[in-house]
C-alpha cells in the first residue's frame, strides 16, 4: 500500500518537473555561447528549439527577447519579454529590457492612470509566480495544521489558547496565499494581452475588412483583447481606445 502511494506521488512530481532536463541544458549553453559570440541567428535557433521541446522558463523567454532585440526584431523582443514577465513578474532585468524594447517601437501610448491602491491590490500577487505561491501556501497550511494540532492535544490552557489563535492567523495566511496562487495562475494563463506583430495594423470600427479605419497601430504595441469574433479581435489600447484588428496580426502573450 505504501509503495503504491509512493509511486503515484513520485510519478506526479516527476511528470510535473520537466522530464528531459539534459537536452535543454546543453542546448541552453550552446545558445548562450552563440549569443556571446554575437551569432544571434544561431543562438535564436537553439533557444526556439528549447521552447518547442515543451519546456519554458522566464530566463529562456528573456534570452529569446534579448536575441530578437539584438536582431532588431523589436515586436518579437517585446512579445518574449512579456512572456518572461508572466512567468517571473518581479524580475527587474526583464522589466528594464522590456522598457528599452518598448522605446524602440513606433507607437507611444500614454496609459490611463489608475488609482495606486487598486494597483497594489491587483498586483500584489505579482511578487511571485503562481508555483511559488502554491508551494508557499501548502507550507503555511501545514504550519497552520501543526498549530491546530497543538491546540487540540497540548496540555496547559494558555499554551493551547496561543496555539489556537496562531493557527487561525496562519490559516488565514494560507488562504491568502492560495488565492494569490490561483490569481497568479489565472493572470499567467489568461488569453488577454497580445502584441502586434504586423508592421502596420489598421484598427477598424467593425470586425470587417471594409470597416472604417479608426487608427493605425504598429508592431510591438501591447493591446488587451476584449473578445474574439471569427478572425477578428476587439482590442483595447492602454489609453482606453478600442477597435477591431485581424487576429493574424497580433500574438497572445501566454
Amino acid at each position: 500500500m505504501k509503495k503504491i502511494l509512493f509511486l503515484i506521488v513520485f510519478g506526479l512530481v516527476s511528470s510535473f518537473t520537466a522530464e528531459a532536463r539534459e537536452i535543454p541544458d546543453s542546448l541552453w549553453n550552446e545558445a548562450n555561447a552563440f549569443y556571446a559570440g554575437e551569432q544571434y541567428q544561431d543562438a535564436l535557433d537553439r533557444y526556439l528549439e528549447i521552447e518547442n521541446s515543451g519546456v519554458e522558463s522566464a530566463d529562456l523567454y528573456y534570452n529569446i527577447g534579448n536575441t530578437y532585440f539584438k536582431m532588431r526584431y523589436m515586436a518579437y523582443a517585446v512579445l518574449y519579454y512579456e512572456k518572461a514577465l508572466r512567468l517571473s513578474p518581479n524580475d527587474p532585468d526583464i522589466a528594464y529590457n522590456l522598457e528599452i524594447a518598448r522605446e524602440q517601437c513606433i507607437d507611444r501610448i500614454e496609459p490611463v492612470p489608475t488609482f495606486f491602491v487598486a494597483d497594489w491590490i491587483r498586483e500584489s500577487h505579482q511578487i511571485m509566480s503562481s508555483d511559488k505561491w502554491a508551494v508557499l501556501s501548502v507550507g503555511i497550511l501545514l504550519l497552520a495544521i501543526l498549530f491546530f494540532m497543538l491546540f487540540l492535544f497540548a496540555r496547559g490552557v494558555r499554551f493551547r489558547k496561543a496555539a489556537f489563535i496562531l493557527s487561525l492567523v496562519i490559516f488565514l495566511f494560507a488562504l491568502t496565499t492560495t488565492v494569490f496562487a490561483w490569481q497568479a495562475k489565472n493572470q499567467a494563463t489568461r488569453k488577454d494581452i497580445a502584441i502586434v506583430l504586423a508592421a502596420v495594423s489598421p484598427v477598424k470600427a467593425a470586425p470587417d475588412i471594409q470597416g472604417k479605419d479608426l487608427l493605425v497601430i504598429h508592431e510591438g504595441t501591447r493591446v488587451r483583447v476584449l473578445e474574439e469574433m471569427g478572425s477578428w479581435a476587439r482590442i483595447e489600447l492602454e489609453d482606453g481606445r478600442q477597435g477591431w484588428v485581424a487576429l493574424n496580426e497580433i500574438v497572445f502573450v501566454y
Partner: protein
Amino acid sequence: MKRIILLIWTVLSLVQANAQGQFTVEVPNVVATGERFRLVFTATNLEPESFNPPEMENFMVLAGPTTSTMNRMEYINGRRTQSRSVSYTYILEAVTTGKFTIGEASVVSDKVTYRTQSVTIEVIQGTSSQGGAVRQQDPVAGAEISDQDVFLRLDVSKRRVVKGEPLTATLKLYTRVNVSGAEDIRFPTFNGFWSQEVYAPQQIDWQRENVNGEIYQVATLRRYVLLPQQAGSIKIDPSEIVCVIQVRNTRRGQSLLDEFFDSYQTVRKRVIAPAVTVNVSELPAGAPGTFKGAVGKFAISAGLGKDSVKAHDAVSVYVTITGEGNINLLEAPRVTLPPDFEVYDAKITDNSRNTGGTFSGSKTFEYPVIPRSHGDFTIDPVEFSYYDIENKQYKTIRSEPLKLKVERSTDLAAPGGTYTPENRRRAVESLSRDIRYIKTASPSWRSTGKYLTGSVLYFVILFMIFAVTGVVYVVMNKRREHMNDVIRVRNSKANKIARTRLKAAGVLLKQKLFEAYYEELHRALWGYIADKLGLSQAECSRERISELLRKRNVETETISNFTDIIDSCEYARYAPDPGQLEKERIFDMAVKAISNMEQALK
C-alpha cells in the same frame, strides 16, 4: 665578394651623383617617309672618351656623326652653375613606314659607361615627295585655315568612372601650320568635379604626334586631375583658344628676291575643343558604415606619439592612410578611444602627390588626446572603408590596436604633501544604453503551460495534507482517550488498592515483620497518590505531588500531613525501633491521611 661589388656600386653611384653626368637621346617620335630629321645624342657634364653609336639600319644616314661641344654658365640668384655638353648629331632619312627602334648608344667617361635609352620612331607615309623639314605647310594668305590644320582637344583618361575615382583631362593643341602664339585662352571649367591643375607649362613645348596618318605639332597646354563629386553624365564645357598663325603673302614670283625672302602676315583663328561628357556612376549600394567617399586603394596604419604618458598630459594618436585614389579628399576616420579620454580635432598632414593621373602618397591625421585616468589602455583599431575600383567592391581595413600606458599624474600624488582639495568629482556619465545581458545560469525548466496551482498534484497534495491530518487526529484522540481511561481506572481503584495494602501492612505489623510493614505502608501511600494524580512511579516526587495537589486546590495542611507521614515511614524504616505504640500510631495516621486525601480530591 658580394660586399666588394656592393662597395664598388656605392662608389660608382657616388661618382655619378657628383658628376651629375647624363647621356640622353633626342629624336622626333613621328616622322614621314622621305623626311630628314636629326638624331642627337648629348653627353652632359661628361668627358666622353669613346662614342659607341647604335645600329640604324632602317634609316638612311645622310650625315653624321658630327660632334659639337657646348659650354654653358648660368647665374641664378648669385649661384653659378656650369655645364658642358658634347653632342653627336646624325641626319637621318626615313625610308620605309613602320615602327623602328634605335638601340642604346653608349659613351665611356672616366671608365664609366653611360647608356641612352632605346627610342622608337614611328615612320608614316609622307604626303610630299620633297624632303624638307617638317611639312610646315605655311598656308597662303587668304586661303582658309581649316579645322584640320589647327584644332584643340580635351582628352580624358576615362569616360566611365565611379564617383570619387580620379581621372585626368589633358588639353592639347594640334597644328599643322605655324602657330606663333595664342591669345584669349579660355580653359575648361569642371563643374561637378574637384579639379587640380597638375601641368601648366610656362613655355609651350611642341611634340610631334601622328594623328590619322598626319604629323601634327602638338602642345600640351594643361593637364588636370579630376575627382567626380556627383553622379550622372557630367559635361565638361568647351574650352577656347585664339591662335595666332603666320601665313605667307600671296605676292610671289615678282623677283628672285621676293622668292627668296618670303613675307608673312599673321592671322587669328579661334579654335574650340569640343565638349566632353564623362559618365559618373553612383557607388554601389551596401557601403559600410565607416565609408566616407574614399575611392582607390589604400592601407592604414596607426601609431602613438608616446607609448607611455602621464595622466592629464597630451599624447598624439597618428592615423596614416597611404595609397592611391582621392587621397587628398579623405576625411578624418573616427578614432574610438577608451572612456575618460578627451580627443580634439585632428590635424591633417597631406603628403599626397599627383602621379600619372591619380593621387598617391599618404595623409596623416594627428589626434591630440588627453587621458584623464591612469592605467593600461588599448585603443581600438581604427576602421577605414574605401571603394576598391579594381575589384569593384567596398573594403574595410583596420589598423593594429594601440597600447597606451598612462601613469599616475604626479601633480596629485605628492607623498607626504598636504592634501589640496580639488574639485575632481563629477557625475558618472552614461556612454550608451543597451539591454541587460542574457541570463546564463541553467534555469529550472518547467513544462510549458503547466502550473502547480490547480494541477492534479496540487489537489493530491492538499488531499494528502488533510488526510494525514485526519489520521493523526484520530490516532491522537484515541490515545488520549485511552490515557484518560487508564487514569480514571487508577483513580477509582486507588482507594481500594490502598486499603488492601493497609490491610496487608496490618497483618505484617501483627507478625512483627517491621521492615516489611513500613515498606508496605510506604508503598500504599505512594501508590495511592500516584494513581490519584495519574502519575507513573518515575514521575513521583515529593515536590511534584505537592505542586499538583496545590493546583487541585487541596489544602496545604492536608498535603503536608500526607507528605509528613510518607517521610515518617521512610524515616522509621531506617531508625531504631520506636516501639509498638508508635508503629500503631503511624498506621492510624496513614489511614487517616488517605481518607483525608480521598475527601479532598473528590
